[in-house]
């Protein structure tokens, strides 16, 4: 139709509920949080404007520094692990073999399990005296490891659980991506005599890059906001906690345990800037490796 349509003002009735909700719970909340980060907020909500004082204190705060480094560790090591493992598992699940649906169900189960149940389960597996993991390691002559008690290993223990819990969701998304690749590509490659590995690296992976990119972004944002498993698996009053702390656990601690909400708001503002920067870099870099047909 060439002629310009007239405005339909009844549209505002349709968008009114979400617009009102978003205005209060997102826009107002966003501005409010930025404002709070420039304030000293007391337990009962009394405020004094302090300018950039919270941010200056953060720069000198050793726990915040540790939270930054740990979050970089969870994201920097976790995301590549999650992406590589889930691509491989999705590829295996996409093969035409017997028992396919059984394997799929088995691998999807962690995606629907409560984080608290996963945490309880892994604390038991990690138990240094009676845990299953140390039991298996003992077969290979490994001395019992204090997975959650030793400050040097605690980040790795958290990482294992994070990766284990994140993979199944990513596998589901990647599997859907694999199923959208037209079989004509595979047929052509087979006629040309390509072997399994060549097909995997020259056809499957390049055609899957849009989904891999999506999974990378989603798991990166997830890893930068790690909270559940650290909070659930390590007691706040132990030495290990300081070695596992992430940006969001520190945000929670400052804002809701210590009730320093201005300071906590500043932590969340820094996390926002980091997430924005990293996501922007990823979108910029995607042109180099993501193929869209």
């Amino acid at each position, binding site marked *: 139709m060439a002629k310009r349509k007239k*405005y339909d003002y009844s549209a505002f009735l349709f968008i009114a509920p979400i617009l009102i909700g978003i205005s209060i719970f997102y826009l107002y909340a966003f501005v409010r949080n930025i404002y709070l980060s420039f304030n000293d907020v007391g337990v009962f909500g009394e405020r004094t404007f302090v300018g950039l004082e919270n941010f200056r204190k953060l720069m000198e705060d050793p726990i915040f520094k540790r939270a930054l480094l740990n979050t970089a560790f969870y994201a920097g090591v976790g995301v590549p692990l999650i992406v590589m493992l889930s691509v491989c598992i999705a590829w295996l699940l996409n093969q035409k073999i017997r028992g396919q649906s059984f394997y799929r169900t088995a691998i999807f189960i962690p995606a629907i399990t*409560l984080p608290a149940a996963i945490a309880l389960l892994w604390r038991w597996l990690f138990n240094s005296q009676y845990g*299953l993991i140390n039991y298996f390691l003992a077969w290979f002559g490994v001395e019992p490891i204090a997975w959650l008690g030793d400050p040097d290993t605690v980040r790795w223990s958290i990482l294992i659980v994070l990766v284990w819990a994140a993979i199944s969701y990513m596998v589901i998304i990647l599997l859907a991506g694999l199923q959208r690749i037209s079989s004509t590509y595979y047929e052509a490659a087979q006629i040309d005599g390509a072997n399994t590995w060549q097909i995997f690296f020259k056809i499957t992976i390049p055609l899957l890059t849009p989904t891999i990119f999506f999974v990378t972004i989603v798991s990166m944002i997830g890893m930068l906001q790690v909270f559940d498993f650290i909070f659930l698996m390590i007691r706040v009053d132990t030495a290990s906690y300081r070695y596992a702390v992430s940006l969001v656990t520190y945000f929670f601690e400052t804002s809701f345990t210590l009730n320093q909400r201005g300071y906590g708001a500043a932590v969340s503002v820094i996390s926002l800037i980091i997430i924005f920067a990293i996501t922007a870099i990823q979108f910029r870099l995607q042109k180099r490796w993501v193929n869209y047909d």
Partner: protein
Amino acid sequence: MKVTNKYWIHLLLVVVTISTVGPFIWMILTSLKTYEETIQVPLRWLPDSFQWLNFKIVNEKYPFIILYRNTIVVVVATVITQVLFASMAAFAFARLHFPLKNTLFLLMLSLLMVPGQIFLIPHYQIIVNLNLNDTLTALVLPHMFSVFGVFLLRQFFAAVPQELEDAARIDGCSNFRIYWQVMMPLVVPGLVAMAILTMINSWKELLWPIIVNSSIDKMTLSAGLANLIGEHTTYYEQVMAGAVISVLPMIVVFAFFQRKFVEGIAQTGIKG
């Protein structure tokens, strides 16, 4: 050559399956042991007799029935409101012509990238000011508005053929009837996908309930189970019984609706 290939795939998948399902089996086995059996060295795989008593004890110590009821109330209310509001907005953005449409849409798009913790302190203050802390309403209220849902559903509304809308308009249908009677039945797959995603997120949500609610009878299962940690972690057979109670029903639901679950999650990865 082909045959060995398949064996390798099976072998690798068995390894993956053991590492995902193995821990759950260990959880169930532990929940059926006596305390002495859980700490026996060398490690004991199976209990002498199944200790169903563990479930009874943990069920008496923890109000699982209330936690489940709360969870169902919160999940259902969140899913219904989110899907309703998002679908209304998605319909408008996909099919109607109105001022500021693109500006508003871009505004929502930019909100998608903001991490959730940015909003938590203000949400908490709003809820406290409304005197709603420690209620189930507090768990639902800030989560009724899904920007992501608007994006997801907009694609589905946009895909409905224009002829259908035109025909309905010629018959004198109002926008509301076009939305509710013509379009909604056609976008059911999108609604289901969104409902499932919302359900999983709402079911797993932990941070918000522990911030805004404090009494155990106002908690969801996700947050209530977190209390089980630290309280009596020495009796792992009871802790695992609690974990089983929280895991098994969802696995049963999942087994029934697996295809829908998988399609729902897969939907998020499709670029539109």
